[in-house]
């Protein structure tokens, strides 16, 4: 575990409930304090995975996102029919005046 300091948990940074609350806010999920210990364990186990990869020298290795390294897929600038508005609104839980309705936003 000697390299743990390299992964995420830099000096002074704790894997604690405050961090879990932060991650929950980023992911828009409810922070459940009772569950947070379990999540901490899961994150630690997950970081062990990253830890394992640190063994490999990838300084000269280019990232591979698409295994086929496909490039330049584009389409012509042409208009095709859109969805009918009533269909869009059918699936929306809350709607009004042809729009999707959400809680008041204060900018």
């Amino acid at each position, binding site marked *: 575990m000697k390299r743990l300091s390299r992964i995420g948990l830099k000096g002074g940074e704790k894997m604690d409930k405050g961090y879990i609350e932060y991650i929950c806010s*980023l992911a*828009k999920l409810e922070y459940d304090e009772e569950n947070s210990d379990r999540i901490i364990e899961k994150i630690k186990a997950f970081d062990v995975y990253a830890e394992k990869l640190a063994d490999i020298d990838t300084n000269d290795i280019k*990232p591979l*996102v*698409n295994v086929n390294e*496909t*490039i*330049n*897929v*584009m*389409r*012509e*600038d*042409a*208009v*095709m029919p*859109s*969805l009918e*508005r009533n269909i*869009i*609104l059918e699936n929306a839980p*809350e709607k*009004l*005046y*042809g*729009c*999707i*309705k*959400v*809680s*008041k*936003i*204060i*900018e």
Partner: protein
Amino acid sequence: MRYETVIGLEVHVELSTKSKAFCSCKNEFGSEVNTNCCPVCLGYPGALPVLNKKVVEYAVKAGLALNCDISLYSKTDRKNYFYPDLPKAYQISQDDMPICKNGFIEIEVDEEIKKIGITRIHIEEDAGKLLHGAGDEDYSLVDFNRAGVPLIEIVSEPDIRSPEEARLYLEKLKSILEYLEISDCKMQEGSLRCDANISLRPIDEEKFGVKSEIKNMNSMKSLERALEFEVKRQTEILLQGEEVAPETRRWDDAKSITIAMRAKDKTYDYRNFPEADLVPIVLEPEWIKEIKTNLPELPDFKRNRFVKQYGIPKYDASVLTLSKDLSVFFERCAKDYKNPKAVSNWVMGEVLRILKEREQEISNIKFPPEYLRELIDLIDEGLLNSSAAKLVFEEMFDTGKEPKTLLDKLGLKQISDEDAIGELVNEVLANNQESVEAYKNGKSNALKYLVGQAMKISKGKANPKMINSMLLERLED
């Protein structure tokens, strides 16, 4: 303590492609809400984006016109955050490999040319529109027509040193983009949006001060006013020995102040990572060269050419080249014409005035440029005096009819026939004996009066110069 202003501008430009960036929905302003949407731009489960090649072309055009290096390899990334106008809860943008880098724009400040650096230009998609009521409803409404509309974001270096420079930068940028015809650049419609980062530092200090981000400046004027306000506000704070808070502020045009928006305590973590549903953009140098060769003439170049080619002053040329359509109109009138300065005067004067008055665009002007030449010719030939010419011009503008026709129709043909003038003069002299006497007794104003009478009788059609000289001749006898 004297402070230096440091400003950087982030400009978002909606590209005028036919379809959206990643789907084939119509890219159109002002459509009925939620009528230009599909599973892709609505972020439905399973929907996938496909890049519009026109977006790449337009971004490269912008990059070339702004003197940037065009990246031969660039890719898209996801910028993740939650907001109701962002359907996928991420924006497809470009993070570490933008399509253009390291450019510049030249502006003229106090008769000197100054280069403002452009850090980068990248491709991204716009979000939908939020509609808020004016009352106290507890909801907001979302229109997704704008979601997925292609944008380029143009980020300047913090090279701008005054609110005036900021406005000049934006004006020049807007002008260049219009010339490229990649956006209609309408700030009032939101197809050109500008945010500013502004900070102050003591003169000769190298380190940057704390910056405020200013949003909601919806016109060139409000950009300049907002930044002027900020300079004052930040100066006051610093002079009191306090620190400027790093925050985002909103310009309130009605109140003429900036107001702090809800405080962001930390910088939000967007967790940018490569967009795996799209593939990298790899450009051929040949293709970029082709685009460069086919770039339209840009404003600065055209302005300088107008000065040389038409012998008009730099000021005139600047006004005439502010808008591409205006410059095209001017050139169509002035090309191979004997009096380009007259054309310039008319275009800068009456044409611009009436366009503003009638709230019309020069591209929709009803009369062809040749008619303006004809009008000027008629004045030169003495067939129209200046006030009559203005009347003919207005009629020409409203109906698109030829000046010669209008001349006769309106009966405004200037009387320059010697005999007719002679008759007029006789009539005036006969009916205004007192004035004749007055003139002979040394009252030179009486001549003006007599000319006026002649114009009155002829209903303004007489050639005033001829009236004047003939009267003078007769009076001196």
